């Protein structure tokens, strides 16, 4: 990509826009606390015993969630990618659902379940309850990461192990060590997500570090304190990220239709495996959905009708915003991936990764602090600030998905076209893009679904009067009867599920067509 080329210009403009609109607000907000006279001194006590205990509590919660999610995710990943267990395709898709549903929806469902079965929500509205809900949400993430690593192990490595020892020893001594980077990545990512999670502990009224930041910011209007506390969390997340940074930056697990190597599949008895997979599916998907259904229709259809009425004005807005957000995210992801592919440097990738690791609430605070100026009102008071939030949160995932698809294309495909005199834009249009269509589509779908359910940043930045599904549910749930909250949540859950199913059927022929010619 020459400096004067259109590709180079598009890359530079996108990179600078991202840095200016998304990275600068974060840097500016953090630095302003340290360099504004008085604010650091005024809040030097921010690291008191209470705060440190709260941080310790958050870290313990994140550790337990990361541990159990990685354990369960590895088990499901193994069963679905290394064995011949029946209904693998069904389980692979359905077990992913919790990852695409907003955490607050699952929180409402679990609270309902405890009310329904035990008559109170004592257990679930606790430290362990938050841990349980977060584990159901993040296990699918671990399943993707470890499953991808497991299916990419060259079968000869395991087969040569079987010449020497038994299945158990091969699994422990060969298979698991080979996927160690994936296990560590899974743990680190889930730890970062859990320690940064706001909506689940907030809903259950469990005080953790992120809820404390939110309280400082929105109840006490002590912005400097909130930012100082945030900087501590950012530091932890970034330090963790850098320990595993290189592997995460390359994130091989975020790929569609990865060629991989020939995979070893084990013949197993279906009994226990099916029981485990069905059990986990019941806990993480069926149980929340059924509970919401029962609660919503307990008193007839009144509450559902009321919920539809309340949510109706939000549908077009939410879908429109998520759609626009997904388009922007896919574009940024594509440009960043293309830049890395054409050796423009990896700094764009790193920027995406760092912003991705910053907790949503903190990102939201940064955007408010930065854009709350009269001359930036056009961004601050409109949907633009929400779209900027989406782009900051999810562009990393899109860039990785698209980047990994590009990596699988041999350089020679582009070079052959280059020698024939095909322009850079036409090489992109006619060679690269058609060959990575499934990944572009996947990046779009995932960005769309994540944007549709995004709450952590949106709740901080949404302009007054904005009608968006997650905001509407979250703001109403504090004062509404439980059955109305359940009904609203059920509707959001169903809409998200319908969209996932719709996209699945849209994507199926696309991927099939693509696979038919990209076999060799």
């Amino acid at each position: 990509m020459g400096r004067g080329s259109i590709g180079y210009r598009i890359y530079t403009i996108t990179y600078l826009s991202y840095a200016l609109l998304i990275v600068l607000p974060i840097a500016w907000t953090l630095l302003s606390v340290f360099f504004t006279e008085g604010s650091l001194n005024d809040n030097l006590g921010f690291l008191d015993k209470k705060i440190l205990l709260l941080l310790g509590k958050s870290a313990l919660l994140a550790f337990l969630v990361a541990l159990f999610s990685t354990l369960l995710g590895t088990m499901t990943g193994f069963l679905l990618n290394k064995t011949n267990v029946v209904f693998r395709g069904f389980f692979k898709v359905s077990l992913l659902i919790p990852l695409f549903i907003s955490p607050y929806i699952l929180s409402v469902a679990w609270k309902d379940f405890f009310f329904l079965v035990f008559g109170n929500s004592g257990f679930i509205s606790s430290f362990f309850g938050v841990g349980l809900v977060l584990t159901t949400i993040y296990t699918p993430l671990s399943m993707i990461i470890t499953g991808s690593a497991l299916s990419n192990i060259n079968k000869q490595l395991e087969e040569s192990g079987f010449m020497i020892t038994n299945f158990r020893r091969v699994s422990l001594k060969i298979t698991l060590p080979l996927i160690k980077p994936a296990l560590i990545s899974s743990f680190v990512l889930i730890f970062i997500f859990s320690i940064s999670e706001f909506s689940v502990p907030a809903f259950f009224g469990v005080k953790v570090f992120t809820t404390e930041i939110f309280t400082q910011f929105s109840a006490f209007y002590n912005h400097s304190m909130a930012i100082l506390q945030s900087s501590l969390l950012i530091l932890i997340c970034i330090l963790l990220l850098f320990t595993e940074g290189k592997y995460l930056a390359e994130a091989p697990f975020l790929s569609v239709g990865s060629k991989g190597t020939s995979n070893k599949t084990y013949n197993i008895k279906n009994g226990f495996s099916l029981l485990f997979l069905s059990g986990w599916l019941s806990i993480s998907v069926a149980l929340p959905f059924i509970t919401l259904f029962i609660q919503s229709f307990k008193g007839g259809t009144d509450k559902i009708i009321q919920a539809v009425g309340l949510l109706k004005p939000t549908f077009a807005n939410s879908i429109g915003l998520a759609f626009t957000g997904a388009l922007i995210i896919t574009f940024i992801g594509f440009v960043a991936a293309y830049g890395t592919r054409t050796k423009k440097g990896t700094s764009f990738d790193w920027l995406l990764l760092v912003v991705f690791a910053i907790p949503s609430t903190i990102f939201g605070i940064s955007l408010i602090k930065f854009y709350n100026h009269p001359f930036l009102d056009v961004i601050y008071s409109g949907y633009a600030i929400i779209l900027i939030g989406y782009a900051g949160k999810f562009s990393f995932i899109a860039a990785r998905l698209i980047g990994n698809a590009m990596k699988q294309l041999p350089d020679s495909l582009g070079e052959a076209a280059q020698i024939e005199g095909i322009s850079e834009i036409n090489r992109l249009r006619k060679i690269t893009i058609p060959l990575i269509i499934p990944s572009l589509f996947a990046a779009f779908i995932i960005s769309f679904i994540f944007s549709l359910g995004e709450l952590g940043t949106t709740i901080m930045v949404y302009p007054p009067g904005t009608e968006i599904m997650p905001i509407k549910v979250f703001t109403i749930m504090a004062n509404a009867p439980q059955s109305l909250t359940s009904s609203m949540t059920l509707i959001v859950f169903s809409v998200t599920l319908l969209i996932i199913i719709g996209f699945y059927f849209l994507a199926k022929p696309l991927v099939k067509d693509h696979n038919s010619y990209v076999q060799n």
Partner: protein
Amino acid sequence: MLHKLTLAIEANKLTCLLGSSGCGKTTILRLIAGLEVPQRGQIEIANKIVSENGKILVPPHLRNTGFIFQDLALWPHFTVYKNIAFGLSERGEEKVKETVFDMLDFFGLQEQAEKYPHQLSGGQKQLVAIARSLVLKPEILLMDEPLANLDVKLKHKILEHIKNLNKNFDLTLVYVTHDHKEAFAIADKIVVLSEGKIEKTGTVEQIKKSENAYVSYFLEY
């Protein structure tokens, strides 16, 4: 890494770059094509400097070269016809269809025109890759171990095709291989390389009779 390498390739002849893995033969090919830039020194094609001291002066598509990649680089989402026609259409050539079918005819590929690369045999893929390059009428055809993945029988068949190429198409051919038998079968001139340096240049007979220690050692295996 190439070291102080001076190499002249004769027009309308088939020159083989022969050497073991990592000796720099593919790099030379990519330098000629303009896919790599020489840090120092210059590359001249038909008395015109095309690359010099870290700069590409003539971009790959204006060098009038064709390139057969080791993995062939057939575009998997295009049919055989489209793979061959793509370059012509992009260059705005007339009579694309006629030219492509002439080429398909020459290589006996008419019946494969609507097939995708994955539906072809190894030999057919090889011929499509050659046809795709030749249809643009290059003066120089660069081939990077194009037969590496073929069985012996097929190799001989394709080698016959390659041998006749410079006669039929008035071409200068540069063929990279690590297999001296392949080189002996087709080359007008052979350049033996080792660790980025030229060990010996000569005709097949001259190479066979060479007393250069490396050449003798290399030919033993």
